[in-house]
C-alpha cells in the first residue's frame, strides 16, 4: 500500500511539464528501477508498473475502456511449470526397475497421470508432409495404438540432401512429434536424446508452455541410463540405431520392444497466474463512431530472467533484467503520445494499450483480442512500439508496411518534422504484439531501433537509451495516429505471404547457437552484424561488429531469412564456412556453431 501511494505521487509529477526528454527518461528510469524487478508478467513488479501506467493515463485525462472502471484488464496464463516427481518403471518379465525423478522429466505439454503399456521405438518420431521426393514418416507401418512411443530428440543429423534436412528440422518440435504419436493412437511418449546428438543422454528441461489446454497424451523425457536399460538385450544399441537413422537412410523402420512394458507417471505442476494489460481510452471528440485507432507497447519483461529467454552471462544470471529498451522505451513514448492526443480533436476513438505477457509469447495482446474488448474489425490500424531506445545514425525501422498500401505516404508525412532516416520493411509477421493484430486482419506498423548487445540482459538499463531520438519518436507516433484518426477510409488491410520458415516447431532451428547480433536497421545485401556475443562461436570465428555475412555454410545470404534458413541446415560442432564483407574486403572465416541447450 505504501509503495503504491508513493508511486501515485510520483506519477503526477512528470506530466505537469511538456513532453520532453526529461519525462521520457523519468518513465524509463521508474519502469526499469530495481523496485519493479524486471516487470515479470503476473509479478509484484508488473503490478507496480501497471499502477504507475494507470496513474499516468488518469493524469492525462484518459479513461478506462467503455464498460470498464479500471485501466487494468486481467488475463490468465500459466506462469511456470515444475516437474514434481515424474518417473518411469521398466518391467521385463518378473524384473522391474524404477527410474525416479533424476532420470525423468515431464514435458511442458504433458497431461498428468500414470499409464502402463508396451513400448515401441519410432526413430525420430518425425512426420513431414513431404515437399521433397520422399515424405518422411517415422510411424510408417508401425503399430503404436495403445502403446508408449520412444523417440529421439532433434532430427537426423547427416541427411545429405540439404533441402531435406531443412524440411526435417522444421518438423522436429517435440510438441509436434508428440501430437503425431497421439494421432497414431499412442498413449504415451518418452523422448531420448540420442548418443550422437548434442546434449547426448540428457533429459529435456521441462520448459514452458503458456497454453492452458491439455494435450491428451503423457509425455516425458528420460536420460541415457534409462535408454541403456530399455535397449539392453535388443539386437542393436541405441547408438547403432541412431547412426543408421542419421546416415542418410531416414527410413529405418521402428520396432516393438519384446516383453518390455513401461509405466510412466507424469507429474507436472502448472502455476496459473493473472497478468494485466493496461488500456486507456480517448473518445472521439466529433461525430459518432465505433472505430478505434490502437497504439500500444508491451510493458512486461523478464523479471530475473528465470524463464529461459535471458541472455545474461554466467556472472549475471538471476539478476534483475531491467528491460529499459525492452520495452520501457516504447511505453514511455506512448505515455507522451497519449498526452499530445488528449489535447487534439479526434474523429475516431483512440485506445492506448500497455500489454503484459509479451515476453511469454504475446499472450496479453492475444487475450485482448480473444475477449473482444474492442472487436478487431473496429480497429482502423494498430501502431506498435517495441524497443525504440537504441536509435543510431538517426535510423529507425518501420516494420510491417506490407500490411497496407497507405503506410509509405502516412509515414512520409508523419516523419517530415521528426526527420528519421526510416528503414521500411514489409513483413508484418513480427516477433512482437503487432503480429497478433495483423493475424486478426488489422493493418499494423511497428517502430523498432534494432537488437543490441544489452538485449535481454541485466545490462539493459535506462542510462543507455537515446532520449533525444525517443522525443522525436513521440512526434512521429503522434503524427501517425493523427493521420490514422483523420483519414476517412483508414489503411487497407493487405495480405502478405509468410516468407519465414514456419512449420510447427521452429525448434529445429533453435538447436543452433552462433552468437551473432544482427543489425536490423542496415540496408545492405547480406546480414549486417551490430555485434557478436562475447565468447560465442561468431566471436571465436573472428566475426566482428559491422561485418556483413554474405555466405553461410556454402549458401548465399541476402537477408535475415536466408541466414535463418542456412542455420537450419548446418551441423553443430562442425566447421562451417562463413564469408563476410568487411568494408569492401571479402573475408572468409570458419565458424563452429554450438548447440543450444
Amino acid at each position, binding site marked *: 500500500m505504501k509503495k503504491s501511494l508513493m508511486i501515485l505521487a510520483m506519477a503526477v509529477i512528470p506530466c505537469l511539464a511538456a513532453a520532453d526528454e526529461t519525462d521520457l527518461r523519468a518513465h524509463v528510469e521508474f519502469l526499469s528501477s530495481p523496485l519493479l524487478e524486471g516487470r515479470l508478467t503476473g509479478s509484484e513488479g508488473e503490478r507496480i508498473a501497471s499502477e504507475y501506467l494507470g496513474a499516468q493515463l488518469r493524469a492525462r485525462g484518459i479513461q478506462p475502456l467503455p464498460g470498464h472502471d479500471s485501466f487494468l484488464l486481467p488475463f490468465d496464463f500459466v506462469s511456470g511449470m515444475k516437474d514434481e516427481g515424474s518417473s518411469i518403471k521398466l518391467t521385463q518379465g518378473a524384473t522391474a526397475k524404477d527410474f525416479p525423478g533424476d532420470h525423468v522429466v515431464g514435458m511442458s505439454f504433458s497431461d498428468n497421470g500414470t499409464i502402463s503399456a508396451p513400448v515401441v521405438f519410432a526413430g525420430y518420431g518425425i512426420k513431414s508432409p513431404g515437399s521433397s521426393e520422399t515424405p518422411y514418416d517415422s510411424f510408417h507401418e508401425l503399430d503404436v495404438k495403445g502403446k508408449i512411443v520412444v523417440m529421439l530428440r532433434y532430427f537426423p543429423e547427416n541427411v545429405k540432401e540439404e533441402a531435406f534436412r531443412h524440411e526435417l528440422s522444421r518438423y522436429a518440435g517435440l510438441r509436434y512429434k508428440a501430437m503425431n504419436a497421439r494421432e497414431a493412437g499412442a498413449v504415451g511418449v518418452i523422448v531420448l536424446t540420442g548418443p550422437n546428438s*548434442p546434449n547426448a543422454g540428457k533429459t529435456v528441461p521441462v520448459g514452458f508452455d503458456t497454453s492452458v489446454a491439455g494435450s491428451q497424451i503423457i509425455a516425458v523425457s528420460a536420460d541415457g541410463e534409462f535408454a541403456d536399460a530399455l535397449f539392453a538385450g535388443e539386437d542393436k544399441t541405441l547408438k547403432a540405431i541412431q547412426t543408421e537413422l542419421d546416415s542418410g537412410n531416414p527410413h529405418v523402420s521402428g520396432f516393438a520392444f519384446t516383453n518390455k512394458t513401461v509405466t510412466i507417471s507424469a507429474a507436472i505442476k502448472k502455476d496459473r497466474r493473472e497478468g494485466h494489460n493496461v488500456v486507456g481510452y480517448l473518445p472521439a471528440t466529433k461525430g459518432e463512431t465505433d472505430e478505434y485507432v490502437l497504439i500500444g507497447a508491451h510493458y512486461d519483461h523478464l523479471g530475473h530472467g528465470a524463464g529461459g*529467454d535471458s*541472455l545474461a552471462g*554466467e556472472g549475471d544470471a538471476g539478476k534483475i533484467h531491467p528491460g529499459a529498451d*525492452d520495452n520501457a522505451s516504447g511505453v514511455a513514448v506512448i505515455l507522451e503520445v497519449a498526452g499530445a492526443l488528449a489535447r487534439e480533436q479526434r474523429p475516431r476513438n483512440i485506445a492506448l494499450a500497455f500489454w503484459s505477457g*509479451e515476453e511469454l*509469447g*504475446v499472450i496479453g495482446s492475444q487475450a485482448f483480442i480473444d475477449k473482444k474488448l474492442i472487436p478487431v474489425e473496429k480497429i482502423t490500424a494498430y501502431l506498435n512500439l*517495441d524497443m525504440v531506445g537504441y536509435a543510431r545514425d*538517426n535510423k529507425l525501422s518501420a516494420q510491417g508496411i506490407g500490411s497496407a498500401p497507405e503506410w509509405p*505516404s502516412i509515414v*512520409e*508525412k*508523419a*516523419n*517530415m*518534422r521528426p*526527420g*528519421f*532516416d*526510416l528503414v*521500411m520493411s514489409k513483413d508484418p509477421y513480427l516477433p*512482437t504484439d503487432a503480429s497478433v493484430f495483423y493475424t486478426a486482419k488489422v493493418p499494423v506498423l511497428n517502430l*523498432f531501433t534494432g*537488437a543490441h548487445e544489452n538485449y*535481454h540482459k541485466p545490462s539493459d538499463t535506462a542510462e543507455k537509451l537515446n532520449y533525444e531520438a525517443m522525443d522525436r519518436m513521440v512526434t512521429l507516433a503522434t*503524427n501517425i495516429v493523427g493521420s490514422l484518426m483523420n483519414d476517412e477510409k483508414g489503411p487497407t488491410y493487405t495480405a502478405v505471404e509468410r516468407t*519465414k520458415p514456419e512449420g510447427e516447431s*521452429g525448434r529445429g*532451428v*533453435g538447436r543452433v*547457437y*552462433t*552468437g551473432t*547480433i544482427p543489425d536490423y536497421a542496415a*540496408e545492405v545485401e547480406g546480414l549486417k552484424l551490430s555485434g557478436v*556475443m562475447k*565468447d*560465442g562461436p561468431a566471436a*571465436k*570465428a*573472428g566475426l566482428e561488429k559491422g561485418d556483413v555475412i554474405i555466405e553461410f555454410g556454402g549458401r548465399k545470404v541476402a537477408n*535475415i531469412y536466408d541466414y*535463418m534458413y542456412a*542455420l537450419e541446415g548446418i551441423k553443430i*560442432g562442425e*566447421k562451417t564456412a562463413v564469408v563476410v564483407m*568487411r*568494408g569492401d*574486403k*571479402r*573475408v*572468409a*572465416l*570458419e565458424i*563452429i*556453431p554450438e*548447440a*543450444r*541447450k
Partner: protein
Amino acid sequence: MSISKVLILLGLLALAGIATADPIHVEKVAAGDKIASGDQFLTQTRQLTYDGKRSGEGYFSLDGKLLTLQSEREPENPWYQIYLLNLDTGDSERISPGTGKTTCSYINPADSQQVIFASTHGDPKSLELQKAELEFRASGKERRYSWDYDSHFDIYRFDRATKAYTQLTREEGYDAECAYSRDGKTIVFSSNRNAFREGLSEEDAKKREINPEYFADIYLMDADGGNVRQITDVPGYDGGPFFSYDGARIIWRRFSADGATADVYTADADGKNQKRITHFDAMSWAPFFHPSNEYVIFASNKEGFSNFELYLVDAEGKKEPVRVTYTDGFDGLPVFSPDGKSLVWTSNRKGASQLFMARWNHEGAREAIAKAPARKEDKN
C-alpha cells in the same frame, strides 16, 4: 520484444559452449582501413520521401518551405508526375495534370504560387501510351530505366491559386529541364528543337532517331514563353541548366559529342562568358550553385560507370573536385536549400530512387575546397 521468434531463430540463444578457438583463414584483412564517409559535409542524413515507386529531382521554394519533386505515385500512370511537398507539415499534392510524362519542375523564386515543369500531356496519344506502358509492366517485364527525350515534352506553368496551366513552349522537340531566375522574369531550359527544323541533313536525321539529345542546347526565354534565345550551339547534349540563387550566373552540363563524358559549364545570366569548370574525365552532370556562389555541387561517375557520387568544385574551376558522398549506386541531382544549410538529392542507396536530405557543412566545404589540389592542365 519477444525473444522466442527472433533470437531463437537467429541462433543467438544458449550459452552452452563446446567450440574452441580454431585457426581462421582470412583472404584480405581490412584492419586499420579507415572507411571514408560523407560525414565531413553531410550530417543527419535521412530519407525524405517514401511514397511512390520512385521519386527524384527535388527543388526548393525560395523560403525553403516547399519542395517540388517528381514521383511515380499513382496506379493509373506509370510515369513521373510532379508533386509539391510541404516541408513543415509533410503534406504533398500532385500539381501536374496526371496524364503523360513529366519532369524537371521549379518554383518561381519571386512568386511561389507559380511552378514550371515539362510535360507530355499535350500529346493526344499520352493516355493511350500510358495504358500501353502499364500493360507492358503488368506482363512482368520492366525496361531498364532510361530517359526517352519524348519530343512532345513542353514547358508549362502551373498557378497554385487558380489551378490553371499555361503552355510556355510550343516548338516540336524536347523542351524541358527548366528553371527560373531569381527575379522570376527569365526561364532557362534545354531543347533539341533544332533537330526538328526543316532541311536537316540526312546524317543528322539519322542521328536524331538514335540520339535525340545530341541536338539539345541551352535556351533562355521570358517567363511568359516569349523572347526565346539560344545561348549554346555546340555538338553534344547541353542540359540541366539552373540560375544561381542570386540570379547572376547560369550553370549546366555539356556532354561530349560522342556522349561518353560530360563536364560542368557556367555563364553569365545572359549566356555570355561561358566557362568550363571541370575536366573530370567522367560523366559529370547535374551541377548546382551553393547560395554563397563560392562553389558548385555536381554528380559524377568517376568511381564506376553506375556509381554516381556527389562532388564539389570551386566556382572558378581552379581546383580538382572534392568527393562528398560514399555510397554504392546512384547519388545525384543535388540541390542546396536557399539558406545553404541543407542539401537535397536523389539516391537509390536503399533500393528504388528516393529523395534524401542532410544538413550541409558550408565551412567544411570551403576548407576542403581550399585544400584541394589545383586543377590539372586542360586537355582541351
